[in-house]
């Protein structure tokens, strides 16, 4: 191998080409295309196994070089002469690439010493850290009115009622049917049938609304009348006890 370099050192086909041009000390504007192409092909043959993608970039350039070489060997037609040197595009690319290589070297110099500069973390004095800007109530309440507050309160209360009691979610429509004597009769009978002491107070207390209390009371009276249940006074508790007559 004539060239003592590793292809790994080259970042790409343009880099390799620039290296060859410099090594041969030839003019970038007048590249001896045959010589450079030959050396380029030699170099990529010597390349260690690389992945296809990486290799393909070098191969595309090889093809371009061969194209240019062929083009230059061919006798020129008049039209082509007008179009200029077949190397032109390659030269332009090489020059642009070279520009950034030089700028990159420039950056390397500028970088020196920057790791010796040390910055601070934010360190606000207590007085500043503790400070809270005063609230601008004018801005904050710009669009607020007492009337708006009222509407919001209305909505909240409606939402609240809807949420807390299913009965009220159908507000106004079926309220009258919400507590029916028949339901309460079944309810009381069912309760009393369960084992344990059944408190008159707690049974009524379990009712959610005044209406429910009234209906439940009526249901108890009805069941006493029909003989389904009996009521005994529980003076120690200031209460009555309900018992199932069937038991």
């Amino acid at each position, binding site marked *: 191998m004539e060239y003592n370099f590793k292809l790994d050192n080259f970042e790409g086909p343009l880099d390799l080409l620039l290296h060859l041009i410099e090594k041969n000390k030839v003019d970038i504007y007048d590249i001896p295309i045959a010589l450079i192409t030959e050396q380029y092909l030699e170099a990529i043959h010597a390349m260690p196994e690389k992945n296809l993608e990486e290799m393909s970039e070098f191969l595309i350039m090889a093809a371009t070089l061969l194209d240019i070489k062929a083009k230059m060997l061919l006798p020129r037609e008049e039209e082509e002469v007008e179009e200029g040197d077949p190397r032109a595009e390659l030269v332009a690319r090489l020059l642009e690439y070279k520009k950034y290589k030089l700028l990159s070297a420039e950056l390397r110099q500028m970088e020196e010493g920057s790791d010796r500069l*040390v910055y601070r973390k934010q360190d606000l*004095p207590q007085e500043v850290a503790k400070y809270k800007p005063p609230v601008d*109530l004018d801005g904050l309440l710009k669009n607020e009115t007492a009337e708006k*507050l*009222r509407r919001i309160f209305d909505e909240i209360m*409606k939402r*609240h009622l809807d949420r807390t009691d299913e009965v009220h979610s159908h507000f106004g429509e079926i309220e009258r049917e919400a507590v029916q004597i028949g339901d309460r009769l079944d309810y009381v009978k069912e309760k009393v049938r369960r084992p344990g002491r059944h408190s008159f107070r*707690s049974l009524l207390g379990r009712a959610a609304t005044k209406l429910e209390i009234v209906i439940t009371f009526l249901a108890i009276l009805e069941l006493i009348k029909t003989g389904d249940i009996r009521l005994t006074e529980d003076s120690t508790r200031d209460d009555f006890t309900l018992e199932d007559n069937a038991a």
Partner: protein
Amino acid sequence: MTREAVLEGILFAMGTSVERDQLAEAMEITPEEVEACAAALKASYEEGDRGIRLLRLDNAYQLCSAEGCYDTLIKLASRPKQPVLTDVVRETLAIIAYKQPVTKGDIERIRGVSSDHAVNRLVEFGLVEEKGRLNAPGRPILFGTTEEFLRRFQIEGCDVLPELDADQLAEIEAQVESETAKAEATEREQQEMVQVEI
């Protein structure tokens, strides 16, 4: 570079306080020389009317910004973001205005979600304040609206808040009452049921 400059750079970059003896070792001078150096730097800050000051803390040194910068610094650091009245905060204000005095618990029951943050914001805004404590377990704080609230909403007093529609009002009032009764009843019943179950 002078010793003062090195000391300045070190204290600047370290941020925290640095022990005199550590400084001496790093700067390869005696602790006494560090002291002299720090004194000179401190003086140069004060005499030169700089924005930095040097503090001596026991046997350590630290830099801090000069007090005179605070006002400007506050403007920069706090970046006064105009708070906005969020729906949550607005709703909470409405509840407090109409149902005052109320506890945070009351508000939560009505809104169905925690209102801690919203109440705190309103207190911060000066629209709501403590009005005492409820005589109940935990003695929760009662909240009500402030004079500032009345001024801002151009209301003459909390007793003349705009009324709800007469119908709506009656309906709601009635329901709220029964809700309260129900809640109390349920509570009592629960207590009794516990007894029964035992």
